[in-house]
């Protein structure tokens, strides 16, 4: 029931997102024909041919309904620029991005867990929280540029760019993971602090539990709750992050496709990216809700 309702709202969010983006792009300056022509030759003949080819002479409403109809059937249209089905364009770029995002997420989460749990003594805590502050305050591309400059250009430890082999994944994944780790560590630490303030922790201590056990068996689980609900945010950050990270490290992926599509007003691709990101958000948030249910029995009531 909960799942069904979630899927329902999810679909609504998707539809709203797709429609909003569609309307927004409709409002963009320059016609669709302009964006298809790009900086190429431009004569009335060429224009009329383009209009014919893409059926741009139909009323906007018809085009919109057609777009929705096809999107509902999994057909996201054809890229104006690349002349290929959008599904192929995104499909081909999905894996490199996903790979990067997954590795970065795992790295970031692992780092955050380790830091939040191990840096409980005053001085280590201070060092760690300062580092977190710096990480969350630094533009990700600066982190990337510095890592690139030091580890690739100066030391030559990692390949400069591209998507070949595990070594090429290290720097971008670290760049993407560091700010995430910064935020998550703060959230986890705060959650642990809060949990340690709760009376049940004193009860646990009064039973003779070791401090380590109090942390692992009681506090950490409570700290996970706020962290898990950040899953949606995490997905957004990763997706937004790859746009910049892929540019910095010259990696292929959705970020590059998005950027190219936005600058050249490749409307079908832009729309697809919008729908995809809304989709990812819906999926991740549903997952987060379910995870919260698993962790916190109090939520299972209704």
């Amino acid at each position, binding site marked *: 029931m909960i799942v069904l309702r979630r899927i329902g709202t999810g679909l609504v969010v998707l539809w709203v*997102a797709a429609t909003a983006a569609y309307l927004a792009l409709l409002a963009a300056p320059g016609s669709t024909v302009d964006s298809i022509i790009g900086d190429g030759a431009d004569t009335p003949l060429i224009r009329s041919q383009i209009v014919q080819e893409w059926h741009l002479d139909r009323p906007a409403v018809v085009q919109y309904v057609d777009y929705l109809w096809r999107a509902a059937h999994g057909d996201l249209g054809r890229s104006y620029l690349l002349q290929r089905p959008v599904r192929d364009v995104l499909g081909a770029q999905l894996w490199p991005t996903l790979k990067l995002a997954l590795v970065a997420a795992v790295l970031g989460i692992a780092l955050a867990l380790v830091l939040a749990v191990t840096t409980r003594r005053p001085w280590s805590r201070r060092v760690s929280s300062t580092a977190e502050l710096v990480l969350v305050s*630094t*533009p990700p591309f*600066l982190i990337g*540029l510095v890592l690139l400059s030091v580890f690739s250009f100066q030391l030559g430890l990692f390949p400069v760019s591209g998507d070949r082999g595990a070594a090429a994944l290290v720097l971008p994944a670290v760049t993407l993971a560091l700010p995430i780790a910064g935020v998550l560590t703060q959230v986890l630490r705060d959650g642990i602090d809060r949990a340690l*303030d709760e009376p049940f*922790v004193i009860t646990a201590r009064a039973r003779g539990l070791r401090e380590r056990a109090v942390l692992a068996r009681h506090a950490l689980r409570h700290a996970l709750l706020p962290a898990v609900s950040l899953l949606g945010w995490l997905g957004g950050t990763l997706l937004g992050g790859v746009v*910049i990270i892929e540019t910095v490290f010259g990696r292929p992926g959705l970020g590059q496709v998005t950027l190219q599509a936005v600058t050249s007003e490749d409307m079908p691709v832009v729309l697809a990216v919008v729908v995809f990101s809304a989709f990812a958000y819906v999926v991740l948030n549903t997952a987060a809700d379910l995870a919260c249910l698993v962790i916190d029995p109090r939520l299972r009531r209704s």
Partner: protein
Amino acid sequence: MTLVLDRPLVLRPPRYAGFLVAAGFLVLMLAVVLVPGLFAGDPLAADPMHVLEAPSTAHWFGTDQLGRDVFDRVVHGARHSLAIATAATLLAVVAGVLLGMLAGLAHKYADEALARSFDALSAFPLILLALLFIAIAGPGALSLVVAIGIATLPHYARVVRAQTFVVRQAGYVTQAVAFGRSRLRLVLRHVLPNVLGPVPVIAVIGLGEAILAAAGLSFLGMGTQPPSPEWGAMLSEGRNYLSVAPWVSVLPGVVATLTVIALTVVGRHLQRRVEGRLG
């Protein structure tokens, strides 16, 4: 009364030292924004004979690809970057407070619709949302302001909405009903001021986020137009020379980072103060 237990006490007292340093830095930044000419020379003066020179006493931050002094550009860039971030945050705060309060006070369905649209809006990564907006309006400072404003708006709207719920049900609003106050008066006298409470503090931290977002978008070439010395744009231009002249991109980035850190430190300090007062 409940007790605060077994958390190392050392952490509780606010870090005044850090706060003071950060606040001092921000004051300096403010001065730089108001009278950049006092601190640095012409950010546009190109010198083709001294291109991509390393930092020295003549050029503290080195020179860029056109022989412009990077320090001068960073100083003047503060005005551009901070103006964009401030304008965007103001936009987000004003719109967010209005919409959030509207949702918090509205009837169930209107509230639900508004809340869902905040959700839908925050379903998109800031960068993507801004890119979408820029795809429509074209790059430029104004686009950046509106894009970041729209993208960060749900943040404030949600806080205000939640706060409105709390305030709406608070005892003192009930009490005010007991004195036969009209709805409008209730909203203006009790709800609005109490809802606004946490907003300035979030806005200070949000300002840092706006700076980061603006820098990110400028980095992607969607921001201010050359030759204006915006930090993100400088980073982006300098990136081409990363292997030969890292200072051109790294130093503006460091200044941007320091500003964001300072804002966060000051914001968190204020937050603790406010929470301490309320709780």
